[in-house]
């Protein structure tokens, strides 16, 4: 219920902002895009005004594990620049310039936009309805012809690297990079069967790589996970390569394994190079480090 109220509030604020800023006036939007005509700078002030509170919100979110309603924070979208992104943005830009409406203002102005506003909204919804089918037809082929493997080895130390999900064909490259031991931190339940632990293990062992399954359930990391990771790293004859969905869990376990042996700042800073945010775990790493220190006395 609270969730719906805040969604209503966010929608209301958004609608108010679009109205107050003048962005529901198509001539202001076209005026901003019309560099060779009577240029209207308003839209730049709107964007600037909107980005400020949003940038603060991202900083607050980075320090939290849950929202203020105790809901999950969103997974950050990937940063891949794809043909769909470019083509879609160009088509959107053309349509935006033709009429001067983007999806937010098209919805916000529907009660007073007249027949033109209604027709635009209908056409936009039709475009959205056809978008997935057309995308599959046009970009489905494109995606298949581009090379599939985009594996990226992300070393946290010279002897421990993390990575997003790999597939069996990537293992040869992992071996070639000098790794001797693979840790699979991803539960089978999350992935299609051709990537399941048994398949990966067979492929790794065929190449002479050691393979250890240590599934970490998202949000349900256990000390047993930390112990297995620690043991595997200690026993490995050479560098260790760990993978999960994004590499985040492999980084979290790594930081907990080394709590107390390296500074907490270091354990957080190193994975942040690859965009893994371990800041919310600071307290946990400190507590483990204190435990470890206590145990030695």
């Amino acid at each position: 219920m609270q969730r719906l109220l805040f969604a209503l509030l966010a929608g209301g604020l958004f609608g108010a902002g679009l109205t107050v800023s003048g962005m529901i006036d198509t001539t202001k939007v076209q005026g901003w895009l019309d560099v060779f005509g009577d240029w209207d700078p308003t839209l730049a002030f709107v964007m600037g005004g909107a980005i400020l509170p949003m940038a603060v919100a991202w900083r607050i979110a980075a320090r939290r594990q849950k929202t203020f309603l105790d809901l999950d924070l969103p997974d950050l979208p990937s940063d891949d620049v794809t043909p769909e992104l470019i083509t879609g943005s160009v088509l959107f830009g053309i349509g935006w310039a033709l009429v001067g409406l983007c999806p937010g203002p098209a919805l916000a102005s529907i009660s007073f936009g007249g027949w033109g506003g209604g027709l635009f909204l209908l056409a936009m919804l039709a475009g959205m309805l056809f978008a997935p089918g057309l995308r599959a037809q046009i970009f489905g082929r494109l995606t298949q012809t581009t090379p599939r493997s985009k594996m990226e080895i992300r070393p946290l130390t010279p002897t421990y690297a993390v990575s997003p999900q790999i597939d069996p064909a990537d293992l040869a490259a992992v071996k070639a990079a000098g790794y001797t031991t693979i840790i699979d931190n991803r539960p089978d339940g999350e992935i299609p069967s051709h990537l399941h632990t048994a398949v990966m293990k067979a492929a790794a062992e065929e190449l002479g790589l050691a393979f250890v399954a240590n599934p970490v359930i998202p949000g349900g990391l256990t000390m047993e996970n930390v112990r297995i990771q620690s043991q595997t790293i200690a026993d490995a004859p050479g560098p260790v390569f760990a993978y999960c969905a994004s590499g985040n869990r492999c980084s979290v376990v790594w930081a907990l394994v080394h709590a107390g042996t390296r500074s907490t700042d270091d354990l957080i800073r190193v994975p942040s190079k690859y965009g893994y945010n371990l800041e919310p775990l600071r307290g946990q790493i400190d507590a483990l480090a204190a435990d470890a220190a206590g145990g030695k006395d």
Partner: protein
Amino acid sequence: MGNHDWIWGFTGGLLIGLAGAVFLLMNGRIMGASGIIGGLIDRTGWSNWAERVAFLVGLIAVPPLLVPLYRVVDTHITSNWAVIVIGGLLVGLGTRWANGCTSGHGVCGISRLSLRGIVATVFYIVAGGLTLALLRHVLGVI
């Protein structure tokens, strides 16, 4: 009102950013108008339909309450129905392919310095600018 347009623009922008902040920090969602409505249209967002509908109710209901209070609002939309239909189709198709529009890529993406958000924004603004230059100043159609 002409000379004060930038103040209204900035104030409205702050409200838009605040809306995005509420949606992120309370609901744990990234505010993008095209994604919220598009997910309802193509069924990919039906699992949390109520939250999407609540957002849309706020978005649609608040502007007409504000209009009589202090700004005379007219969308000044073109009366050329063919332009409206083509524009609407392109906006619907393009924002779903790009997975975002002015709010998702422009506001939420740029504010966290997302490469995708910045690239998308550059491309739709340049495409929009060229479209207006060509159709308004070269061909004189719109």
